[in-house]
């Protein structure tokens, strides 16, 4: 055990990643050629539950229904069209090489592995890069209105962490357009009777029968009714856990409940400490704030990030005495361009975020709170003209102006990193099946493809790859060994879980304390942001692990949930989710404590390059950069739940690199 502070014990419980044999570029092709099939007459006898209706869930539900399975799909929103995939702005990667700039499946694969700081599985990532090409075809056929050139061909742009232009986009609303394509496919299947849709319905627990995931217990958020659903397989596509930090760019309702409940029922939670802090968000302005707003990373193509060289100049901006215009060119520090000359403002997200934190910690921040840097467009406006910038980013500039009340064309934007995406999630094998047979996990909810840091425009790609192309090919592998309809909701396990769910709701309703759910959520969020956010230390994590149980205790003693559980009750919904976030935060901190290295979004202050290191002396990297420790930590950390308040148990899946060589990630 690497860390004495965490009382977890590594076990030798083998995790079988089920990676197919053969050379990397042929694995997926040969897997599909040999995969089990279910004949069409039998497919309709199998039922599948899909929880979540974003890109991964919506795509899976629609496609499995097209194939003939009986699908039930669940979402907490009032319509599947509102899942938070809709808010993705920038774009989706596809290795089409339409720009003839040297892109290929291999290069997308390599960029993703390197971008993820060598903590993802080669086979999964290569499959993702292969499928990226089909996704673009599929979306165009559905009528997704991607940006086009005057000649009618699809347009591309470059995105953070890549030196080729492989990102397809629909102005700053790519996620919306992809989700609507997916939603329309889903509604088509609903109208044909293949999918039964349950909106305003939240999964509160997983039902495991004889070791297999066979159903879920849900609450109807409009009526309060608790019901069970049984099926031959369960698919979770329930998104990430960014809202554990209270403030994030996630939608208000995004939560970790489905994944955490699965974890408590035996599914392993993998790499939960890998969280992505996105560099370009609108800074926090006050403690009333409910969420943070992302400004698309695409802005970094034409914007230059800087702070004043001197603390005194920065102080004058913070006090409102000066604006950006008062700082002459020679007094500005374009810190990303300075530190990473070959990637400049397009350096990957983790590196850009950490650099912004560094300059603000030095006292050179420009937002009122001290936590903000400039994203400046004056050079691009001079070079390309105001109209071009408006055409490219008009809606983003408008959004910024609405929120901040400042004109970004004139004054530039002030931005600061914020929690955006979570690379960690439930552990899955190559089939996207968790260690509970029958439980499959797609999209952001699984841990699989992004390692320790996700590259821009890769989340949409992964969600759709999992939903449209991977799960339809891998699910039969599981179902072929099952007798359709063998478990129904009359099984005692359903009654048991239903009773537990009802008891927990009763418990939440009956605390009748004095503090709102939000106040606990905010307290938890600030704690994990401080101790398990952009940089982590052993001391801080130990402190967080001491404080979280106290928050839990206070919550269950003093939370107030007014109203009744029989009907719409938004405080009850939040209370259930926050109770789960508290439990989840502990697992996240255990993981961060165990991982005694810095990689991607996980930066442990104890593990960074110093001026004495060879790689710094020879100019390959800078002092202060993250130091990975491949000899000890080149593994997926999969955590087994052991009971409330009991430290989780670590299982390791060693990561083996055959096709790429592990190297220090340099963007200089």
């Amino acid at each position, binding site marked *: 055990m690497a860390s004495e502070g965490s009382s977890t014990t590594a076990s030798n419980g083998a995790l079988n990643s089920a990676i197919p044999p053969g050379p990397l570029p042929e694995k997926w092709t040969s897997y599909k050629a040999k995969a089990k099939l279910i004949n069409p007459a039998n497919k309709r006898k199998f039922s599948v539950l899909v929880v979540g209706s974003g890109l991964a869930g919506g*795509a899976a539900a629609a496609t499995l229904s*097209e194939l003939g399975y009986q699908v039930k799909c669940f979402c907490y*929103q*009032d*319509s599947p*069209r*509102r899942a*938070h995939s*809709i*808010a993705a702005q920038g774009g989706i990667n596809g290795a089409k090489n*339409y720009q003839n700039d040297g892109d290929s499946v291999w290069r997308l694969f390599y960029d993703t592995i390197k971008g993820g700081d060598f903590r993802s599985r080669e086979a999964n990532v290569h499959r993702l890069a292969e499928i990226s090409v*089909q996704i673009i*075809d599929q979306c*165009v*056929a*559905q*009528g997704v*209105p*991607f940006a*086009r*050139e*005057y000649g*009618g*061909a*699809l347009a591309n742009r470059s995105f953070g962490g890549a030196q080729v232009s492989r990102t397809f986009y*629909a*102005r700053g*609303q790519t*996620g919306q357009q992809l989700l*609507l394509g997916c*939603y*329309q*496919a889903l*509604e*088509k299947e*609903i109208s044909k009777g293949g999918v039964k849709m349950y*909106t305003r319905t939240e999964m509160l627990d997983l039902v495991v029968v004889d070791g297999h995931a066979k159903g879920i217990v849900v609450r109807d958020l409009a009526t309060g009714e608790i019901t069970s659903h049984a099926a031959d397989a369960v698919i979770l596509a329930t998104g990430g856990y960014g809202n554990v930090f209270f403030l994030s760019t996630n*939608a*208000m309702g995004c939560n970790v409940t489905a994944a955490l409940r699965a974890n408590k029922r035996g599914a392993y939670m993998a790499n939960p400490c890998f969280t992505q802090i996105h560099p370009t968000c609108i800074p926090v302005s006050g403690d*009333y*704030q*409910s*969420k943070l707003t992302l400004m698309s990373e695409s802005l970094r193509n034409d914007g230059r990030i800087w702070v004043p060289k001197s603390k005194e100049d920065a102080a004058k901006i913070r006090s409102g005495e000066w604006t950006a215009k008062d700082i002459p060119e020679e007094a500005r520090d374009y810190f990303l361009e300075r530190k990473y000359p070959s990637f400049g403002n397009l350096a990957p997200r983790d590196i850009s975020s950490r650099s912004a934190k560094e300059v603000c910690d030095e006292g050179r921040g420009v937002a009122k709170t001290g936590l903000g840097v400039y994203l400046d467009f004056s050079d691009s406006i001079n070079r390309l003209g105001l109209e071009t910038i408006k055409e490219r980013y008009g809606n983003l500039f*408008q*959004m910024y102006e*609405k*929120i901040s*009340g400042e004109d970004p064309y004139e004054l530039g934007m002030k931005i600061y990193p914020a929690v955006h995406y979570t690379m960690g999630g439930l552990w899955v094998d190559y089939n996207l099946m968790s260690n509970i047979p029958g439980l499959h996990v797609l999209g952001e909810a699984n841990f699989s493809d992004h390692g320790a840091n996700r590259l821009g425009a890769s989340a949409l790609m992964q969600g759709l790859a999992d939903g*449209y*192309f991977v799960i339809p090919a891998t699910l039969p592998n599981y179902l072929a060994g099952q007798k359709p309809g063998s478990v129904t909701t009359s099984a005692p396990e359903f009654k048991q879980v239903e009773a537990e769910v009802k008891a927990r709701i009763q418990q939440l309703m009956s605390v009748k304390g004095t*503090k*709102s759910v*939000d*106040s606990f959520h905010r307290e938890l969020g600030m704690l994990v942001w401080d101790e398990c956010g952009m940089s982590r230390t052993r001391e801080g994590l130990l402190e967080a692990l001491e404080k979280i149980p106290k928050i839990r205790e206070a919550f269950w003693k003093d939370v*107030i949930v*007014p109203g009744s559980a029989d*009907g*719409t*009750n*938004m405080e009850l919904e939040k209370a259930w989710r926050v109770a789960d976030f508290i439990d989840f935060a502990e697992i996240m901190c255990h993981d961060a404590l165990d991982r005694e290295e810095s990689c991607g979004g996980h930066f442990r202050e104890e593990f960074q390059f110093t001026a004495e290191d060879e790689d710094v002396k020879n100019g390959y990297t800078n002092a202060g950069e993250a130091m990975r420790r491949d000899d000890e930590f080149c593994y997926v950390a999969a955590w087994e739940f052991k009971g409330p308040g009991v430290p989780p148990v670590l299982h390791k899946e060693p990561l083996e690199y055959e096709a790429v060589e592990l190297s220090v990630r340099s963007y200089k």
Partner: protein
Amino acid sequence: MNLTLKVWRQSSPNATGRIETYEARDIPSEASFLEMLDIVNTGIIEAGNDPIHFDHDCREGICGSCSLAINGVPHSKESGITTCQVHMRKFREGDTIWIEPFRARAFPVIKDLMVDRSAFDRIIAAGGYIDVRTGSAPEANAIAIGKEDADDAFDAATCIGCGACVAACKNASAMLFVGAKASHLNTLPQGHAEKDRRVLAMVRQMDTEGFGNCTNQYECEAVCPKEISADVIAKLNRDYAAASVREVVE
């Protein structure tokens, strides 16, 4: 800042609703409108009472969940934004603000300011899609689509399905919503094959759901947070007329 709120409260779909008055105290002018409601709700909750329920999720103007009429105007009198993008700096100290749900027969109230907009999903299910099986798509660049057509399709496709158009219309017509989807899909070559079936089915579903007719007042266009042009209604009428004729002839 300090404000007086007049808020529609209705405990369940069949209960009688009423306007209740709340005082909003010490609201920061940087807060968003929904954050102002959060602050008021915290006070209500800590007094042990049921908070004001409203739909909201992304809070950045794209999911289409939020659905309040502020001082009688769906979303607010500011153009091109959703309720969640309204900021308190647009109000003055001492203002009285009226907050009601989006009202339409086809959008029954669930609780307080939350309404049931599932009729929109059923309209999309009736024909608001291109029927292409996953895996059967041709190479993406096989069909060239002129930039202008692509941009037109995109402009119509930006609809967030919030229902403000319906709430603003004196007839509670859904023509802007239906027109936007029909215009998006019918403008693209991929959508041509199903064009007639699509408009006939969507318009029939719209009528079945109890939405009213369009009488060209353009209130819908005025409140649309994505500023979708009422031209999509004209296009829908044209496509519908042509489809109806072909349906009879064939």
